[in-house]
């Protein structure tokens, strides 16, 4: 079973994403900020991460940079309410940049795409 981490400071989002992904048959971990997310990444072997950008403690971009440093092959999907972070090249290290939407089909399609192998 593929293991996915959902890092987002919004509890409702964490809940929504976890339920949807579990239904898809993934094992889901959650983190409510950047530090927590890095701890989970180090502790649990993961197959994919869904990362919010604007979070307390540490921004998603910094989290992304550290993750990519340590685990360059671990796919990270950015999921943000902001579209303009796309211009920050710090986000370009991610596999996908998704603007949050209540329709999760795009997100799930991206997850499937990066877990294909």
């Amino acid at each position, binding site marked *: 079973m593929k293991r996915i981490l959902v890092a987002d400071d*919004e509890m*409702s*989002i964490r*809940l*929504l994403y976890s*339920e*949807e992904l579990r239904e898809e048959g993934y094992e889901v971990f959650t983190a409510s900020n950047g530090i927590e997310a890095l701890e989970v990444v180090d502790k649990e072997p993961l197959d994919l991460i869904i990362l919010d950008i*604007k979070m307390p403690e540490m921004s998603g971009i910094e989290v992304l940079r550290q993750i990519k*440093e340590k685990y360059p092959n671990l796919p990270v999907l950015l999921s943000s*309410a*902001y*579209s*303009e972070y*796309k*211009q*920050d*090249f*710090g986000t370009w290290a991610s596999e996908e940049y998704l*603007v*949050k*939407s*209540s*329709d*999760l089909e795009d997100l799930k399609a991206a997850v499937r795409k990066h877990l294909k192998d």
Partner: protein
Amino acid sequence: MTLNRLSFLTQLINLFTSAVAYHERVDSFVYLLSRNLKVDLTLFFSLDKTRGTLSLSAGSNSLGAERPRLEFSLGQGIVGETAQKRSPLVVSAQETGVRTRNEVLDKIFPDYQTLAGFPVADDNFLYGVLLLIDKDPRTYSEYQQETILIACRMLAGNIRQALLHEEAKKRIAELAVLFDVAKSVVSTMELQALLERVVSISAKVMNARGAILRIIDEVSQQVQVSSEYGIIPKGFPGMDDIAGQAPTASGELTSVTAEIRDAEGQKHYYAGIPLNLKGHLKGMLCLYDKMTPNYRFQQFDSENIQLLQTLAGMATGSIENALAFQQIESLAARNERMVNVLTVLHDISSVLMTTIDLDAILTILVRALTLTNAMAYDRAMVFLIDKSGETLTEVRHACQVNPPPGVPLQHALIMDHHGNAPASATIGNEPIRVPLKDDQGIIARTVLFRKPFHIVRADRHPQVNQAIRNILTGKEFLSVPLLAKDEVTGVIVVDNHLSQRPFKDEDLHFLTMFANQAALAIENSRLVATIEASSHELTLIRERMLESDRLAAMSSMAEGLAHEIRNPLVSIGGFARRIDKVVAPDDPLRQYVDVIIYEVGRLETILRQMFDYTGETLGHFQEHDINALVADSLTLIQRELDKHNIRVVRELAEMSPVYCDERQIKLVFYNIFQNAQQAMEHGGVMTIRTFPLEKSDGLYAAIAVSDTGGGIAPELVFNIFNPFFTTKEQGTGLGLSIAQRIVARHYGDIEINNELGKGITFTVTLPIAKYCLIPQGKTAPPATDAEED
């Protein structure tokens, strides 16, 4: 025989104090002497000093109707000897040689026996000799001789008086003449009238047939003024000949008299009197043919010359005054003309000041040139240099017009007869164009040489352009440059083809003054137009900047809102969809859930359309310190550089802020640094230099990044910015391509300097904010929409 001396002398005193004329007195004297001394004949010989002769002038007896001419020279005969000795001399005809020596007396008294001579003299002068002749031998007692000598002395005194009287009369007459002359010459200031008076008076005083007065300018050898009177004989020497003959002692001319014979052998006399005028003027008064009362020509004597010189001297002062007066009058006339022209120029200038519109200025110019109450040229053309600076183009022309009646010049310049603005026109359908080259004729040369030209015969002048010649049709014209602030902007051409009025130096002078004013007006108009255009441009830029500030503020607010709204919407919509999955198709709740999903979707669409767009468009364009951006970008890649043992050298100059999107520019630097790092997998030196760079269009911030990676093959250099081009295993080939696009959007540039065997230097140049006015036609700030596509 007794002599009553008292009676005799009393008679003489009575005679000499009487009012009878001089000659009659002398006649009476000899008669009285003969009677009282019982002498047969008494004669008086008067002395002519100049000739040295004594000639008979009175006798006691009648000597006949025609007095015989009897003349002794000094020392000759009894008369001559008496005169020489100045003492009485009595001789007898019997004495040897007496008859021979006095044979002239045989004509009138051949049978004389005794001759007695008595000098008529006073203490100083001898006036003549009294000769007493007797037909009998006789002696003169001492008493008689003494009496005769007293009588002679009395006669001498009387003669002297008479001579003085004559002299006085002559002097008085001369003074009267001079008085008349003086009165006459001061009675007028008009030069010509004065000269006429001087010549006519001189001729009349001298009783001469003709006279000329001429004043010559010695420098130009031109006759300044001259006047003639009476008959000037043909073939007479001219003024110059007479003046040339005059001896020039100490450079000043002196008077000259001479005679010549005409073709018929008639003798003529003339006199030349110089007028000593001040400065370089030379004057000469000539008189011809002095006449005697019986109409014979006569020589001018020294007294005549003296009188003429006095007369000339008096006239000289008056002539000088008249000359000065004439000069003052002509100066005054010139001043009046100048005041008129200056008034006109002032009026024109004040009208020119009322407008800055080039079209209006040009119309006023041609009107000022052709209005009869302004410059009044028959035709006028105005040329302006076009923007390229290579061609003169005719912009206006006009023909002479009368001003509308009763309208002052200032109004006439800006309205026609109907009170409307005058229509503008060019000659023919096509305006004349003259290329600005040396071989293109006078009008082009007026610009090139920056000087006015006065062409007298346009048809013959080799420098007149054919197009101009066709219009000016072989006549005189003026061409002056429009010169303001040391720059020629055009040319004014005028002619007088209808009136044929010739141009004077003054015309060129005034037209040049006019052209200077006109040029200033044109220059001002152009300056104002330039300032207006710049001001308009600045306003636009300012508006754009304000707009972008406003949008940035809105965008920033919108970003906050979008985030705040989007997260709850995602949750609401997401859970609604989850509910939707579990609600049975026919459950009444399903309808409500669908409404929630639909409405959330609608809100999300609105957010996406509004904020995703603005957020992307209005990035983070601000003024940034380029060195800080370099440092920030460097921290992102520092770990990689350390890992590959790459040393970084920074040579950062202090730089003005650059208006840019910091995230994009950081990406540019990041990509270039990464490129350098990848080129030096086994270590090396990366040098980063920042420096200000002056380019033709302004100041730029330059960032040069050099590596020591050995460079790349020259044939590959041209591909380096192409997308997906890479020489590395790891690279995507997009880094430099993206960098180049970002820099281009900032109106900057990336240059590459590849040194094979050494390394590559990338130089990024970005316009510095305050020197970079965003060019027209481009939008600011630049849109960023490509990288995400």
